[in-house]
């Protein structure tokens, strides 16, 4: 069931918000031992919010399409009075005294918070294998990673525990779990959604966004958070098909599903435009250096508790402190150069299609896939769009087997049309 379906049933009195919350809790309790998607389950709060939603609807107060809809927040979104750990034992006892802006807006929209989802420690990694709270597992095969860092959010949506979950994306952390778990993940343009009360990782890269079952549901959540007007569906869209980088070292199943998606778009009236994209390898390098520097600035205060870091995160925090200010500034200067080069693509295409990830979900503990580091294979197609600040969406494609994601990117920062376009051709 989608958000749209549930909203319709709520207003037709076919289901109540309390019943939706109870069903969500049943699914969470049933799946939690197997998948470990949640760090905190807010059962009493959820039932209270659901009762309030029902009472309001009964007396004619309708807060919109998220009214009474169960959802989850990644555990780096501050929630007053509810533990917010960032997936680290260092912050295991942290209870914020104020809400992040996202939670305030979703509560005002009548949505029902079921809990806080697990994540890669401090959002600094893409496996969601977590030494503090345990490994999060892929619902399609619990021996495999769900991706990360918003792994619990991807699992909670893909395993039907909630209708949507919020994640953060600094180098692919919404789109990677969306691709590996088989749901929709939307990274808005940098700065589009408020990060007030969201624990920082990469100050100039961080974005917040929704993971959902459908593109239309992502639009609904974005509208609730940003008050964006729904744009008209574009016609005769020009789709850029990269002829470099995004076709390198792609697993056969991913390449086949991607080819099918291109043919489907063409059948929908879109034009496919072969495209040479400017140096994604360079973009990835400067993106990783910027993140190393910024994340160490955010996290180095916790180095007094070195033994409590996961070993993978500790290495990154320590390495980031070794980047000179000159190198950091040069990376930010190059970012502007790349941004200008990529903005010229707007003359040729309206969107770019690429696989979200060149491979399918690796096994938990697997360090290499097709001879490539799992972390690099999982992020090399997604990180460039954090560096460029562009909106990017991952949608499930393919049929059967492990999930595969198609990444749709708008070469302009105004991404409101991206969701409308994707919804129109992915019927």
């Amino acid at each position, binding site marked *: 069931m989608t958000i749209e379906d549930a909203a319709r049933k709520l207003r037709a009195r076919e289901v109540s918000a309390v019943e939706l919350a109870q069903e969500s809790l049943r699914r969470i309790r049933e799946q939690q031992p197997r998948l470990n998607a949640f760090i905190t389950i807010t059962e009493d709060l959820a039932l209270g919010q659901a009762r309030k939603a029902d009472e309001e609807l009964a007396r004619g107060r309708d807060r919109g399409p998220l009214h009474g809809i169960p959802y989850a927040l990644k555990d780096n979104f501050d929630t007053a009075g509810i533990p917010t750990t960032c997936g680290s034992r260092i912050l295991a006892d942290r209870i914020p005294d104020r809400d992040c802006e996202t939670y305030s807006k979703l509560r005002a929209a009548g949505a029902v918070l079921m809990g806080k989802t697990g994540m890669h420690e401090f959002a600094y990694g893409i496996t969601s294998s977590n030494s503090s709270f345990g490994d999060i597992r892929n619902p399609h095969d619990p021996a495999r990673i769900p991706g990360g860092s918003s792994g619990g959010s991807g699992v909670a949506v893909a395993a039907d525990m909630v209708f949507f979950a919020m994640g953060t994306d600094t180098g692919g952390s919404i789109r990677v779990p969306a691709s590996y778990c088989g749901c929709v993940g939307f990274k808005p343009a940098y700065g589009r959604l408020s990060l007030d009360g969201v624990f920082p990782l990469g100050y100039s890269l961080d974005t917040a966004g929704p993971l959902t079952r459908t593109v239309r549901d992502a639009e609904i959540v974005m509208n609730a958070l940003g008050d964006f007007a729904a744009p008209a569906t574009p016609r005769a869209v020009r789709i850029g098909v990269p002829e470099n980088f995004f076709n390198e070292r792609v697993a056969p199943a991913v390449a086949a599903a991607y080819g099918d998606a291109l043919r489907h778009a063409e059948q929908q009236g879109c034009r496919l435009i072969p495209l040479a994209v400017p140096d994604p390898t360079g973009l990835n390098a400067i993106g990783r*250096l910027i993140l190393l520097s910024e994340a160490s600035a955010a996290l180095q205060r916790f180095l007094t508790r070195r033994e409590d870091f996961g070993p993978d995160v500790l290495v990154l925090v320590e390495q980031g402190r*070794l980047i000179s200010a000159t*190198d950091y500034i040069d990376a930010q200067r190059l970012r502007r150069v790349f941004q200008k080069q990529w903005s010229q693509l707007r003359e040729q295409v309206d969107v770019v299609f690429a696989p979200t990830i060149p491979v399918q979900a690796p096994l938990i503990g697997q360090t290499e896939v097709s001879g490539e580091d799992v972390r690099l294979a999982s992020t090399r197609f997604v990180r460039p769009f954090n560096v460029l600040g562009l909106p990017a969406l991952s949608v499930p494609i393919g049929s059967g087997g492990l999930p595969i994601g198609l990444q749709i990117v708008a070469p302009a920062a105004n991404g409101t049309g991206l969701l409308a376009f994707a919804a129109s051709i992915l019927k």
Partner: protein
Amino acid sequence: MSETQPNPVTAALLEELHRLAAQLSPADAPAVVFEP
């Protein structure tokens, strides 16, 4: 014990950065600037 030297992964990233940065002109300003 803290690390004091870039590991091979970081060193390779810095090498790539230095290769790219050689193309910059002094007028190329950083993406992050102070906004009063």
